[in-house]
Each structure stands twice: as structure tokens, then as C-alpha cells.
């Protein structure tokens, strides 16, 4: 650049015949690939990873990433309806205990406890949160934060559901492949399912409630009914993750209601970028392996983990996914002012 001349950055959309939410006019296979690859590549990678990592320690990390990915998706879905949750642990714990109890007390097999835990856990969570859907913003968040802690204390003091010891020696998966592919499959289903829901008319109402719930009410739509439905969907995804994890550990205890299952998914969404679901999944696939890789650091692990998280947020406040998406769809060049 010559001295004295000022330049500024200009962003331009990459040339493609048509790119919009509703219109698909594709000119060539190149355009088709351009739109398809960002979706197809991660899906293919996720399906292949269990095979590549089979038998290694990282297989377990992949499983955890999927579990936290599910919780992050569940958070992102509630957030897109304007419900800021601080209680993903409630969903996780409800599913985990529901499946664990059915298996431990009634002897139900895995292929029944997981669906039952998903539906049952989601119903319990919805019933608990429906009375407070009228609360907005931080008031709703506080209730979701308290509920899992409340249940952890109830289990401890009343010594129900195994009390402090938890429920031990639950059924294991017949094969490790089932567990890992259930997790991967559920993650993909939730990811693309939530994206699809938010693009449909039903999703327009949900996004509308987030934008301005009074407008939605003035348009004759019962916002509380729609909020309850979204809580059920989000809770089902969280409960499924819980039920899956219960049988993976063959144990369920108060730790499933711990703050970890609230904070880590939230950090994953913020790191990956909220609102797109892909960001939530991406965030968990960065944070969980990162926290494992830092295990060698010993005591400094959590401190370093925190520093990396803060650094990433400061550098890319929009979220990694939105940054990547922008770089993919636009190119930058310098133009003279």
C-alpha cells in the first residue's frame, strides 16, 4: 500500500446464482457442491470417526463430545425461543435418573429405558417449568438454575433413588458400537431436526416469541403453549443424553445434576456461536477434546482451559461457526477509500 492512501476492507458475497432461504436455483454441480459440502463433510466425518477411533481412549472423548453436544443443542433451541436456560443439568439428570430407576427397580432393558427416560424425563421437566414460562429473561434462568440443585439435595437428604451412593450396576450396552452410534445419530438428528423446525412455520412463531412476545400474542397465538412445546423438545434431547450416559457409566448418581452439565454446554454454545445449532455442536467438539488434551497439565488444567476459553471469546465474539460461515460465503479485499 502506498503511503498516504487509505484502504478499507470490503466484503463481497461469493458468486453463486442464487442463495437464499426459500429459493433454490442452481446452475451447476459446482454450485451444488458449494452448498452441500459444508453439511456433507461434517456428517461424513462424524459417521467415520467411531470407526477411526475404535479401541482408543479418544473414542470415549467422542462419546462425551456428543453428549455435551446434545446438551448444547438443547440450550441453543431454548435460546432461540427466548428462554435463557441455566438448567441443562435438570434435563440431563431427569433423563439419567428416569432411565436408571426403571432399569434398577423394574429391571427394564436398555432399549426400553432409553426411550422411556427421554419421554419421561422431558415430561417431568416440562411439568416443572410450565408454571414459570410466564417469567421472562433472568427470572426464568434463575428457576432453571435452582431446580437441578434442589433435586440433588432432595436425593441426598431423603435418601431416595440411591441417595448419595446412587444406583449401581445398571445394564451395559451389548456392544460399544451401539452406544457411540446412538450418540452420533442423536446428535445429527437433533442438529438437523432443530434447524428444520426453526425454518418452518412453527419455527417462525418460536423465533417471533424471542423477538417480541407481545406481537405474537397480538397475532392471536398462545405463546405459553408454544413455549411449553419447545421446552418439551429441548428437554427430550437433554434427557436422551442423560439416559444414554447412565447406561454408558452403568451408574447414576447426584453428579448428573451437577453444574458441569449446565456450564459446559453453555460455554460450548458461546464459543461456537449461538443461533445456528451447528455452532453449538462445533463448540462441544472443541471444548470437550480440549479439556481432555489438557489433562496432562495436572492442576493448571482448569486455569489454562479458562484462559483459552476467554481468549477465544475475545478474539471471535460472534462465535467460531459464524466466523467460518462468513469466510466461506464471502471474501474480503482491500479497496481504496
Amino acid at each position, binding site marked *: 500500500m502506498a503511503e498516504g492512501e487509505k484502504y478499507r476492507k470490503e466484503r463481497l458475497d461469493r458468486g453463486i446464482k442464487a442463495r437464499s432461504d426459500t429459493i433454490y436455483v442452481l446452475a451447476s454441480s459446482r454450485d451444488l457442491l458449494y452448498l452441500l459440502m459444508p453439511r456433507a463433510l461434517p456428517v461424513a466425518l462424524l459417521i467415520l470417526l467411531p470407526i477411526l477411533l475404535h479401541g482408543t481412549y479418544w473414542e470415549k472423548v467422542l462419546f462425551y463430545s456428543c453428549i455435551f453436544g446434545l446438551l448444547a443443542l438443547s440450550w441453543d433451541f431454548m435460546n432461540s425461543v427466548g428462554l435463557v436456560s441455566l438448567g441443562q443439568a435438570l434435563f440431563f439428570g431427569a433423563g439419567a435418573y428416569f432411565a436408571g430407576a426403571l432399569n434398577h427397580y423394574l429391571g427394564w432393558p436398555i432399549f426400553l429405558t432409553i426411550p422411556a427416560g427421554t419421554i419421561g424425563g422431558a415430561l417431568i421437566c416440562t411439568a416443572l417449568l410450565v408454571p414459570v414460562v410466564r417469567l421472562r429473561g433472568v427470572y426464568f434462568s434463575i428457576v432453571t438454575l435452582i431446580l437441578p440443585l434442589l433435586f440433588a439435595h432432595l436425593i441426598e437428604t431423603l435418601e431416595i433413588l440411591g441417595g448419595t451412593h446412587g444406583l449401581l450396576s445398571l445394564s451395559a450396552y451389548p456392544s460399544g458400537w451401539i452406544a457411540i452410534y446412538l450418540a452420533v445419530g442423536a446428535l445429527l438428528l437433533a442438529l438437523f431436526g432443530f434447524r428444520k423446525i426453526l425454518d418452518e412455520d412453527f419455527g417462525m412463531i418460536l423465533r417471533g416469541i424471542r423477538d417480541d412476545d407481545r406481537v405474537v400474542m397480538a*397475532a392471536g397465538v398462545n405463546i405459553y403453549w408454544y413455549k411449553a412445546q419447545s421446552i418439551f423438545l429441548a428437554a427430550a434431547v437433554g434427557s436422551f443424553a442423560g439416559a444414554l450416559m447412565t447406561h454408558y457409566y452403568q451408574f447414576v448418581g447426584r453428579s448428573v445434576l451437577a453444574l458441569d452439565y449446565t456450564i459446559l454446554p453453555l460455554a460450548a454454545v458461546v464459543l461456537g456461536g449461538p443461533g445456528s445449532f451447528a455452532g453449538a455442536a462445533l463448540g462441544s467438539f472443541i471444548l470437550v477434546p480440549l479439556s481432555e488434551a489438557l489433562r496432562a497439565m495436572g492442576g493448571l488444567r482448569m486455569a489454562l482451559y479458562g484462559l483459552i476459553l476467554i481468549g477465544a471469546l475475545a478474539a471471535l465474539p460472534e462465535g467460531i461457526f459464524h466466523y467460518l460461515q462468513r469466510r466461506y460465503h464471502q471474501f474480503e479485499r482491500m479497496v481504496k477509500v
Partner: protein
Amino acid sequence: MTEDVILEVRRLTKTFGGIMAVCDVSLEVRRGEFVGIIGPNGSGKTTLINLITGFVKPTSGKVLYKGQDITGKPPYEIACLGIARTFQMARTLHKLPAFKNLIVPLCSPRVRKFRGGKYGERDDIAIDILDDLGFERDSFVPYKIAGTLPHGYLKRLDLARCIALRPELLILDELFSGMAMSEVAATLPMLEKFHREGLTIIMVEHRLRELFRVANRVMVMNFGQKIADGPPQKVMEMEEVQKAYLGTEVEE
């Protein structure tokens, strides 16, 4: 009470703490009327609308719609009965494309009752409604994100949301405020058209010249009370109204 009274407000009162926002207001609107509500700022016009549409619960009094008591019902139920309202500050769903704003009323139980409509079909209906209200389809205005549209469009988008609900009673809260003269001139005939087609309209407005062109009755409010009700010319001749609305002359 005759059968063609569509809305009856009976001695409605609302206090916020010690402040009387609306005080003992009664109003009868017959089907097919075009009623204007005027009054100085803070005289309780918007609160009256909020009370009728269920956004604020009254301290005392009753609202009857087609003879049915709707006092204290939630806003979405009242909207589904056929009372649509716009907001003073043009509230829209600003992150959605303009036409997707109309998907919400088109999904409401009220509109579903009239016609089925699948995903995609509603988009066409929404764009048709917007095109009629001056969102030029050919220049892709309905597809733009609502938050990026100029203020005048937002006001009309608010109106379009009401029209999509197929209301029987339309309540407009300062629709023209913040609109350019050309936009007002374009919107006024639309309102006249809706009125001719049988829609009952209540309009809160500060732009009196435009209001008096279309309204056949005007109610004046001041300090939460109704101080006059009648044909526009007669009402404006009343000394009390001139005092409240235009202010008293300053003695020199």
C-alpha cells in the same frame, strides 16, 4: 343495547399505583363505524386500547365484544375473537423477513379455522397481503429482514399483521405517527377500503386532518376521562375540547 353493537366498554377504570390512567370510560362502537380517539399525550388513549385488547387488566369495569364479556381474557384469545391492534411504536418481529412476520397470525387458531394452509402456502398469502399494502413484491421488499426496513414500512407491517388475522374490529394506535406524508396519503385509501368492506375501525391519532377525513365519530379523552363524543366537526367546536386539546390561550 342493539344487536349491531360490536364493542361496548362499560365504566372502565385502570389505576397504576395512585395514578388514574383511565377513569370511568364508557364507549359503544357499532358494527361498520370508524371511530377516532383523540386527546393530548398521556390522556389514557393507549391504556384504553391495552385494556380492550387484554394487554392490561382493568381495575374495574367491563369490556363486551359482540355481547360477550372479554374482560381479563389473555390477549391471544381476544385477538382470536377478531380484535386486532397495532402498536404505537410499530412492534414487529425484526429479525424475521417481513413476510414471515405474517406467518404468526396466519398460524393462529382464528385463521386456521377459515382455511387450511400448509407450509409454503402461507408464504404466498403473506406476500399477497403485503403487496396490497404497498410492499413492492417486484423489488423484493417483502423478503427483506423487517429490522432493516424504514419506519413507514414497519408501521404498515404492523397493520398487515392485523389484516392477516382477518379481524372484525381493527384498533390502530397512532398508525400515522412517524410516517411520511406520501406514506400517509397511500395508507389512508387502504383504510377506507377496509372500512368499506365492512371492517369496524377504532383509530387513535394525532393527525387530525387525516383522521377527520375518514372517521365518522370522534371521542376525546383528557386525564383518563372521556370529555366528548360525537361527529368530528361538532366535537372540535366544543370549548372544553379546544381547551384540553389545543391548550388555553396565554394571556398577555
